[in-house]
């Protein structure tokens, strides 16, 4: 057994090492395949995964004597008891440690494979392997083993041992969840018996280079953790071994009845009762049996323990779960359901796995089978009652979960409870799916007729069924057992377009499942014949003519239904497997990349006529566009890349369609008269979408019943070759034999031709847009610009919108049943379009828009649109996005965010301010398509939002916000996929252009002052707003900032923008000296280390010559974290260690270097020290 597990582990890790599609414990980004970090992680994760294995070994070896009934023999023999037990135990621990060696084996073999990218393999580091085995594997196995040893010795029951290890697992998970709260990290560092979260917390700021080279040293908290848990393990072992009772346990005397003789009594005749086997009594029998089985499960300790473990995992989350910036949500129903799926369903599947199998074997396990099978009950009663019992069990569990959720909702004062949603989601969809699993499991147990192999087969099936079809390139729900389209419930759009497909796939699989059920019934083991051949007679007698007829009918229905599903998913709609799609994308690139960058006309003016029919999910677009030859040579043909999912017709006068590649969606029109430089040409297109039947997976959720949200690029033919349509994943590109893609073109300082496109579109610059938008009269439609006219006709509403200011060729169209909040602010319409269920944060949003307008118009320049709109859209996506004057915002984020206490970070306010800032940073000034482009849009939007936020909430609140930004940046840079870039060269990397930029720009503002900072930004607006190409690069921004930075601080430009610079500042100690007259001298001992990091995070210390803040604070009052500021000043620090003395006017309490954490600091919480 040990060797089998060793083989399995080796294979698993070998797979993870030699291929990117297998992952153990998540993806490690750009880290070496055999990096110490990866090795230690594998040991961490695997020693938890193998928990059950350890349990099996230890419990089997502890219980061996009991299960073979040899305990009387063994324990009466004169083996020294301690020796015997400890020997047994250690043997089992070693046996369960051996399989873990498969990790090292797998990595070593995996790295030797010729197909593994040599760049991804680092040097062999023995230390990491030894560390993994002795400091992770051994203590963990010993600890698990000791607990199981104790439980097994006490209970003498292997089931109880398994349950105890399950409880261990849950405790570990809980420790991990507690760790999510930043404040309690040290606690969870010690609390995790397996050291996995300890390890991940201590390494969370490791850079790629750290991960490649460092072995986490066994010291500090980590050492403590290992010592504590290994110690606990040894203690438990010792206690068990010394207390373990050898004597045959005396069965409690009350339970054992003394033999009583059979008295000689006149024989009483048995009452003559005629057994009944009519329909009615069989129905009664079936119901009775179902209830009996159900009660048995409910009373079984394993069930109770699993339920408790599940609830322990699930219930706290209902109350404590937090999202970004430590915020919680209004407990809307779908949010509660998410909690269930995330934290309870795995337990439910465990219950199904155990009990659907256990019930099949119940009679045999209890050796009741001969009596049971010889009684005259029909076999179907046994099978169906067991099935129904497990079914009812799950049903009740689901009801209970709903009850928990509703209670949690009510306890939070939330009353908008959607019982219908619970019912549809948890019962109609989820429960019906779980039932299919129960049946499958019972079928496997019956067919395989070996309990353990069947358990294994079921679990293996669950795993395989989830991915094997993708690997085999058949991505249809018709082949993956119980398959159905994925779906997302939205408060706005309900179950929307998904239900129909789900329904038909369910019908299809239920018909199949009935056949499976009949098969199970026929093969059901009754009596002592187990193989198929000898069961033949039984099958024959069970397969009555009536059942045969039914089987035929069901099979017929199944085939018909299958045909219907096939027609809908494969003929009316298409299933494109991910392989096929990747192939197509690769072919697009291979075939047409040659046309990239050839001179093409650019769109200048657009008119749309859009007719949306939400109920039928139908969209008709007709558009007239003007395009202009902005190049200096004549253009004789126009290339189009067509959008997917739309029926597109293009009408280009005096042209000939010379290439029409329907598969790759590429067309070339040859113009009869070439467009000369400066010429304009009109073309028209129509694009139609209509939902047909139902799909295998709902592909396009942008046109729906309530909450349609699509943008112009969704349906428009795009001029020229589109780099955006290329395959982007590194591994996918390799599979398709494409060279690695550059994330972004290289930054150039003086560019002309490479700066002709901005990073959003390559075939338009600033365009005029006019839209005639019609929708159902119950809905409100929004298109870019001002509403000129609105009217109703034939039960439909018509809206005429016109953009008053040329804008980027990237804007949205939205239609839903909205409530609208309308305000006027300095002549600008401030509007929030929201669903009536989500009123919560609407005022906050409006307020943020107004505050943003105030700040931005005062500091950056005029706002050119006549309106600002926030528009809610369904949670098929969860972002907020800025279009000209319009900011769609997902219902999943800001609209239900719950910001109540003063401590909370106002994420809604922040996101709105950020999107508002995009009205300047992106929609007025947009970067050329090259490295650093997103500094101009995302980073400056981030800075702008910080300023608005600071004005509203004050500097203290900003510190908390910045902590999250710092945490996020430091953490995320460690899982960088390719290279961490300096801010200036950012390649659309979120953790850099949002998170790092927050830190950097906020710090820069502190150093050079808000006025200078804003003056720099304003100069950018003045020079580049709405300017035709060439577009500005990040150099424009840096030059502007440099111009506003005093000479003494010029070094900051290099530190903040041009390089990756990190600090490790520490307040070592501080002393105070009273000068009398309420004056004190405070002397601070500090350390200041400054590093430059390369793209993998490899750090090199560099000399310090920086202006850094030094602060002294009074004793905090009440709950405050920090006291009154007594001194805060910039000091020129030039050594990595030193002393600074300052004078303060009151009794000081704390002193520190960079006390406000303005610098990117690897360890931020040691910058303040208590004064001695």
């Amino acid at each position, binding site marked *: 057994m040990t060797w089998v597990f060793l083989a399995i582990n080796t294979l698993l890790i070998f797979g993870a090492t030699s291929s990117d599609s297998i992952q153990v414990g998540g993806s490690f980004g750009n880290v070496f395949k055999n990096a110490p970090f990866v090795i230690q992680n594998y040991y961490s994760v695997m020693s938890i995964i193998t928990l059950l294995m350890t349990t099996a070994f230890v419990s089997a070896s502890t219980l061996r004597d009991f299960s073979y009934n040899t305990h009387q023999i063994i324990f009466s023999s004169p083996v020294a008891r301690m020796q015997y037990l400890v020997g047994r135990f250690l043997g089992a621990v070693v046996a369960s440690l051996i399989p873990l060696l498969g990790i090292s084996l797998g990595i070593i073999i995996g790295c030797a494979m010729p197909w593994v990218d040599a760049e991804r393999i680092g040097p062999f580091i023995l230390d990491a392997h030894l560390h993994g085995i002795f400091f992770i594997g051994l203590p963990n196995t010993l600890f698990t083993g000791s607990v199981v040893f104790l439980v097994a010795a006490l209970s003498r029951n292997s089931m109880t041992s398994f349950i105890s290890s399950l409880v261990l697992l849950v405790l570990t998970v809980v420790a991990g969840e507690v760790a999510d709260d930043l404040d309690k990290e040290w606690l969870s560092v010690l609390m995790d018996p397996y050291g996995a979260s300890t390890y991940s917390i201590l390494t969370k700021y490791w850079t790629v280079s750290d991960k490649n080279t460092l072995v986490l040293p066994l010291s500090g908290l980590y050492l403590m953790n290992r010592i504590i848990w290994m110690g606990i393990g040894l203690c438990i072992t010792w206690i068990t071994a010394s207390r373990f009772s050898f004597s045959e346990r005396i069965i409690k005397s009350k339970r054992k009845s003394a033999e009583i003789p059979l008295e000689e009594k006149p024989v*009483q005749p048995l009452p003559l*009762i005629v057994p009944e086997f009519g329909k009615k009594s069989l129905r009664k029998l079936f119901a009775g049996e179902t209830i009996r089985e159900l009660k*048995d499960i409910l009373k079984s300790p394993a069930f109770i323990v699993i339920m408790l473990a599940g609830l322990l995992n699930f219930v706290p989350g209902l109350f404590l779960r937090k999202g970004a910036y430590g915020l919680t949500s209004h407990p809307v129903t779908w949010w509660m359901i998410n909690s269930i799926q995330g934290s309870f369903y795995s337990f439910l599947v465990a219950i199904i796995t155990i009990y659907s199998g256990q019930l099949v074997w119940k009679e045999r396990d209890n050796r009741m089978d001969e*009596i049971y099978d*010889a009684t005259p009950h029909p076999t179907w009663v046994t099978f169906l009652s067991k099935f129904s019992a497990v079914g009812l069990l799950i049903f009740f569990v689901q009801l209970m979960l709903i009850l928990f959720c509703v209670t949690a909702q009510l306890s939070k004062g939330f009353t908008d409870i959607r019982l219908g949603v619970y019912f549809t989601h948890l019962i109609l969809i989820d429960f019906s799916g779980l039932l299919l699993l129960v049946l499958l499991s019972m079928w496997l147990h019956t067919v395989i007729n070996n309990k353990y192999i069947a358990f294994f087969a079921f679990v293996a099936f669950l795993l395989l069924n989830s991915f094997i079809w993708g690997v085999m390139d058949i991505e249809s729900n018709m082949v993956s057992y119980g398959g159905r389209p994925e779906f997302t419930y939205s408060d706005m759009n309900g179950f929307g377009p998904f239900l129909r497909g789900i329904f038909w796939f369910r019908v299809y699989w239920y018909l199949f499942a009935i056949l499976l059920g009949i098969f199970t019934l026929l093969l059901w083991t009754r009596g002592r014949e187990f193989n198929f051949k000898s069961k033949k007679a039984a099958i024959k007698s069970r397969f009555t003519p009536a059942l045969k007829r039914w089987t035929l009918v069901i099979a017929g229905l199944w085939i018909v239904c299958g045909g219907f599903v096939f027609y809908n998913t494969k003929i009316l709609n298409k299933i494109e497997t991910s392989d096929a799609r990747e192939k197509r994308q690769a072919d697009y690139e291979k075939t047409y990349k040659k046309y990239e960058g050839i001179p093409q006309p650019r769109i200048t003016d657009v008119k749309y006529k859009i007719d949306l029919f939400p109920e039928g999910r139908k969209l008709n677009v007709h558009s007239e566009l003007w395009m202009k030859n902005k190049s200096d040579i004549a253009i004789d043909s126009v290339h189009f890349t067509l959008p997917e999912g739309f029926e597109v017709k293009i009408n280009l006068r005096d042209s000939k369609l010379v290439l029409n590649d329907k598969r790759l969606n590429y067309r070339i029109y040859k113009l009869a008269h070439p467009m000369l430089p400066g010429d304009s040409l009109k073309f028209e297109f129509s694009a139609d979408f209509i939902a047909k039947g139902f799909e295998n997976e709902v592909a396009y959720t942008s046109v729906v019943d309530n909450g349609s949200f699509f943008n112009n690029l969704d349906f428009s033919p795009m001029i020229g070759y589109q780099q955006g349509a290329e395959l982007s994943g590194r591994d996918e590109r390799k599979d398709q034999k494409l060279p690695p893609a550059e994330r972004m073109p290289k930054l150039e300082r003086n560019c002309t031709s490479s700066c002709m496109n901005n990073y959003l579109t390559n075939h338009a610059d600033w365009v005029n847009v006019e839209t005639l938008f019609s929708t159902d009269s119950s809905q409100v439609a929004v298109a870019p610009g001002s509403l000129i006219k609105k009217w109703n006709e034939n039960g439909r509403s018509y809206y005429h919108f016109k953009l008053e200011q040329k804008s980027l060729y990237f804007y949205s169209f939205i239609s839903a049943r909205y409530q609208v909040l309308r305000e006027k602010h300095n002549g600008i319409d401030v509007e929030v379009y929201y669903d009536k269920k989500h009123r919560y944060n609407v005022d906050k949003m409006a307020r943020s828009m107004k505050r943003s307008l105030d700040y931005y118009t005062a500091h950056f320049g005029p706002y050119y649109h006549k309106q600002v709109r926030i528009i809610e859209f369904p949670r098929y996506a969860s972002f907020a996005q800025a279009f000209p004057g319009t900011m769609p915002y997902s219902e999943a984020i800001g609209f239900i965010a719950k910001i109540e206490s003063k401590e909370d970070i106002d994420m809604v306010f922040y996101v709105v301010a950020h999107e508002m800032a995009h009205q300047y940073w992106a929609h007025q000034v947009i970067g050329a398509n090259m490295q650093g482009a997103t500094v101009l849009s995302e980073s400056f939007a981030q800075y702008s939002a910080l300023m608005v936020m600071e004005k509203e909430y004050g500097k203290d609140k900003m510190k908390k916000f910045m902590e999250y930004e710092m945490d996020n940046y430091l953490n995320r840079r460690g899982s960088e996929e390719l290279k961490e870039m300096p801010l200036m060269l950012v390649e659309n990397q979120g953790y850099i252009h949002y998170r790092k930029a927050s830190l950097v720009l906020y710090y820069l503002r502190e150093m050079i002052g808000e006025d200078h900072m804003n003056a720099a930004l304003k100069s950018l607006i003045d020079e580049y707003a709405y300017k035709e190409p060439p577009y500005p690069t990040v150099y424009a921004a840096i030059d502007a900032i440099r111009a506003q930075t005093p000479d003494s601080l010029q070094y900051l430009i290099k530190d903040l923008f041009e390089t990756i610079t990190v600090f490790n500042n520490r307040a070592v100690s501080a002393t105070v000296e009273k000068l009398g007259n309420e004056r004190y001298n405070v002397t601070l001992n500090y350390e200041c280390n400054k590093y430059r990091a390369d793209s993998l995070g490899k750090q090199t210390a560099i000399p310090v010559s920086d202006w850094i803040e030094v602060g002294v604070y009074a004793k905090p009052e009440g709950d405050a974290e920090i006291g009154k500021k007594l001194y805060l000043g910039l000091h020129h620090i030039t050594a990595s260690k030193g002393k600074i003395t300052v004078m303060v006017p009151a009794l000081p309490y704390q002193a520190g270097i960079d006390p406000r954490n303005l610098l990117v600091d690897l360890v931020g919480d040691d910058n303040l020290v208590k004064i001695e």
Partner: protein
Amino acid sequence: MELIIQDLCKTYPGGVKALDHVSLTIPTGMFGLLGPNGAGKSTLMRTLATLQEADSGTAFLGDLDVLNNKVEVRRTLGYLPQEFGVYPRMSAQAMLDYIAVLKGITNKSERKSLVEVLLERVNLYQFRKKNISGFSGGMKQRFGIAQSLIGNPRLIIVDEPTAGLDPGERNRFYNLLSEIGEQVIVILSTHIVQDVKELCRQMAIIDKGKVLFSGAPDAAIDSLKGKIWERSIEKTEMEDFKSRYNVISSKLVAGNPLIHIFNHDDPGNSFKATGADLEDVFFTRIGGLA
């Protein structure tokens, strides 16, 4: 009514012939099926109890085709398997009630009174609320008999019911069995000769799947009259005697083996004639001597 078994054969996948052309006629009353361990008794019992399939042959209970009409057979069957377990945490009363449900006794009050009578009958009434898992071996077997009596069976099959019982328990169990074996067919399998001798009017001896004898115990004993001889020997002489005589059994009496041999006439050599008993029949038959 008789149970007539003809030419029943069963070979296990491993090649073991469990039943080799077994033919028996079993009348009403107690019928003993005697054979050593592994003789095929349990296979025969389970086949009659609808739990196993025969390869060939027939078995009829009156008109009822036992092998092919399992549903009907189960309605008239009481079966006590050689070994059985019970559900943990279940009382005798609850368990009997449960089996009564499975046997089609749907009326709750009828069931209740039936269970009470049965418990009285096997003298477990005062323990009806106790868990069966705490019962002694004899009590558990009495419970087993009680459950087999549910549903007025015409055919009762008890497989090795006395294995593991102490003599007192065994006696009490005999009494119970003999009470019920008046109007119905009771087939009792055992490897203990005593059981058959005390209980059965008809019997069969089987070994290695073959019927070696069937008939009344007395007839069997009569057939050996004057052919069984005994003497006491030294332990060291055992091998010698085994090679010279048909030694059918030996038991220690006062430390020395007392052997029984089968011989048609006086073997001399200090052998004394002894009255044959059923045990001698059993060993003679199994040894293939008569």
